[in-house]
């Protein structure tokens, strides 16, 4: 019996159930299948080269630029081929009461399913993956941007995210939170400020050969150590400078992905998690959110020995110490030996596990909620073999890890792979 006949007949009597996830009904021409059986691939990447300021673009125009690049790369027409559009944004970064209003036109999403996730780009990516696996869309565009140069009071807005009763009244620049965490982490992990300075030097140097980066600079660790203190032990050069960009990724379900792209980059696993929002009860030494997010992503990706299986990693480094802290949480560096690994150049371009070959946030620029999506884009470019002078040869499996920045303890992880 044709399912629609069954439904008409059932409409006259009680229908017992139309179960979520097991519906016999076809939605948008796709059978509804669970996560394990429907792979999702990245088939289009669009990154507007980062710049410290973009006065010639309005936020709409920079988003249009990023979207145009991604759709051209994917070979799709957003008006015909894209079934859902996701923007990752927060009102207070943009200065609008409801930012979702100002997104559709420049993404090709007018009169289409589109929404905003107030989260980081990888959290947005996860929603896109789930929409595809739930049969709600076959092709999804995920967008995140930074027009932080339009924001005159960046620190004021960061501070505005702190708890109004317990933390805001203390006043001061919110960077003291990073100073406190850096102090606690360095002690627990037995790392030195010099080790963190080496991370800064590595990433800013990598950025010099990444055409997408805004803040490439040839720095010595000495330069970093000598830079003015912000909130000890955090120094000026330990902090990633801000930048503008727009990043758009186009995702597709496997059958469609193979039709549209010669080498889709598969999202093998994805995870996201939040530790306590309370400064007073969260872990100050471990990036617990990254541990939990990685657990979920590794489980879905069937990664058992991450340090061995991951060829290239882009992990959040909005502050220098976050890179090693994240590497430990992700199982990519053994706690206690991270200092040694840094000194031996393990994570450099020529090392055994290149980390932030792109330059990371320190070298490319802190692009707020777009940071995570940018890391996924850089990993995807590596796996395609399109990372130019910073290419890690033979990279087949990569990892992108994000953190939403102060004062949050929220982050996400994506494991990407090419080939079968």
């Amino acid at each position, binding site marked *: 019996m044709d399912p629609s006949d069954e439904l008409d007949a059932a409409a006259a009597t*009680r*229908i017992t*159930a139309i179960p979520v996830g097991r519906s016999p009904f076809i939605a948008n021409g796709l059978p509804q299948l669970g996560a394990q059986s429907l792979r999702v691939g990245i088939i289009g990447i669009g990154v507007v080269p980062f710049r410290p300021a973009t006065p010639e673009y309005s936020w709409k125009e920079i988003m249009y630029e990023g979207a145009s690049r991604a759709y051209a790369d994917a070979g799709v027409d957003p008006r015909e081929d894209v079934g859902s559009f996701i923007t990752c944004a927060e009102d207070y970064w943009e200065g609008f009461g*409801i930012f979702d209003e100002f997104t*559709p036109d420049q993404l090709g999403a007018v009169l289409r399913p589109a929404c905003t996730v*107030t*989260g980081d780009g990888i959290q947005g990516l996860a929603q896109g993956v*789930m929409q595809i696996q739930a049969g709600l869309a076959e092709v999804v565009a995920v967008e995140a941007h930074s027009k932080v140069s339009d924001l005159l009071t960046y620190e004021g807005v960061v501070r*505005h995210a702190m708890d109004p009763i317990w933390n805001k009244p203390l006043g001061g620049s919110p960077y003291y939170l990073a100073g406190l965490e850096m102090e606690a982490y360095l002690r627990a992990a037995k790392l030195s400020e010099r080790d963190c300075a080496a991370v800064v030097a590595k990433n800013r140097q990598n950025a010099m050969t990444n055409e997408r980066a805004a803040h490439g600079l040839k720095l010595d660790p000495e330069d970093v150590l000598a830079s003015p203190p912000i909130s000890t032990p955090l120094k000026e050069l330990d902090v990633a400078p801000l930048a503008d960009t727009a990043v758009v990724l186009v995702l597709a379900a496997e059958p469609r992905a193979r039709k549209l792209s010669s080498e889709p980059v598969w999202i093998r696993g994805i995870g996201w998690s939040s530790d306590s*929002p309370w400064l007073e009860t969260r872990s100050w030494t471990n990036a617990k959110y990254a541990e939990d997010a990685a657990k979920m992503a590794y489980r879905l990706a069937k990664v058992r020995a991450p340090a061995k299986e991951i060829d290239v990693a882009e992990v959040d480094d909005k502050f220098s110490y976050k890179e090693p802290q994240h590497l430990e949480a992700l199982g990519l560096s053994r706690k206690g030996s991270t200092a040694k690994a840094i000194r031996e150049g393990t994570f450099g371009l020529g090392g055994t596990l290149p980390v932030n070959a792109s330059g990371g946030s320190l070298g490319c620029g802190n692009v707020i909620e777009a940071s995570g999506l940018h890391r996924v884009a850089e990993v995807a470019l590596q796996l395609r073999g399109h990372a130019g002078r910073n290419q890690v040869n033979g990279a087949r499996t990569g990892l992108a890890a994000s953190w939403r920045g102060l004062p949050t303890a929220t982050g996400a992880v994506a494991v990407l792979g090419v080939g079968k």
Partner: protein
Amino acid sequence: MALDSAGLTIDDVDAVVFGSAPDAFDGIHMKGENVLDGCGGVGKPYTRVYTGGGTGVFSPIAAYWHVASGMFDCVLVVNEEKMSSCQPHAQSVFGYIWDPILDRPLKPNLVWIFAMEMNRYMTVHGIRYEDIAAVAVKNKRNAVAHPCAQLADANITVDDVKNSEMMAWPVRRLDISPPSDGASALVIASEDFVRKRKVESPVWFGGVGWCIDTTMWTDRDLYFPEYLARASKMAYKQARIDRPREQIDFAEPYDPFDYKELHHMEGLLLCGKGEAPVLTRQGVTQRDGDLPTCPSGGLLGVGNPIAATMGIKVGELYWQLSGQAGKRQIPHEIHTGVTNAWGDLMQFSSVVVMRA
């Protein structure tokens, strides 16, 4: 309360979705992060989705895809709104939803949007104000049976609405729902989970849809919500509904203003353009009518805590379809209900169809 009524605890929940409208109301940037512990999100995958006023029906849709993808078995959705924190008045925040170059210099008030849309809708179809005011009367009376109601009134009449204070012509005070504080929560689960845990009286998703229209609202004819019609078609296609007026038993359209119930009934394709006032006049949309509409009392009667209206909309579908609506229970047999929410600059709608 949601977990208790399902016989579950927070440990049964695999992921949390949070919905809330402007951060500026609460006075916190990234407010989703600030409240995540109250939502049970610590140590879990937690996401906030935000589509302005559409969030009340959109966050359940996000929870739906969490489960329907196969990635999670049980998801808690929590929606919250605390408009009262904003001083001097929550209205001031709405000054920032407008375009900074085209609109804000004119110092617009939020009510202007609704007034302009209501005027266009009335003029194109030649609708009398009395027929619109009748919706406010119906819903505020229906709300008497809702324990959370802020503005229920058993005795309100069309004359009361007509005589209420003029805000921005043609909108009067009693045409509008109040700013409210509120919170609501739903538990969404897979069929497997429901079966294994023997959860009583589940109500099932039939279809979901959402759609956004252009930011340039001044380029649109406001008499009909095209974006809602498309979102409805998306949801109806999944639910295999092609004759909505016959196949849907009751509706909870979003009613922050009385004319919106009518506007949305037409957008939900429950009747032809301009026909919703006729159905109302005929009593079809009363609780004991052929198409009960806003049996909950709606936003007009219960209150408008934006995202938390989830409890008045999707929540009402659940209570009606599972026979738990008490004094609000529709007195005849029902199997299928539809609801929508409406958001952003008159440009977004989310739609959910549910079945018993």
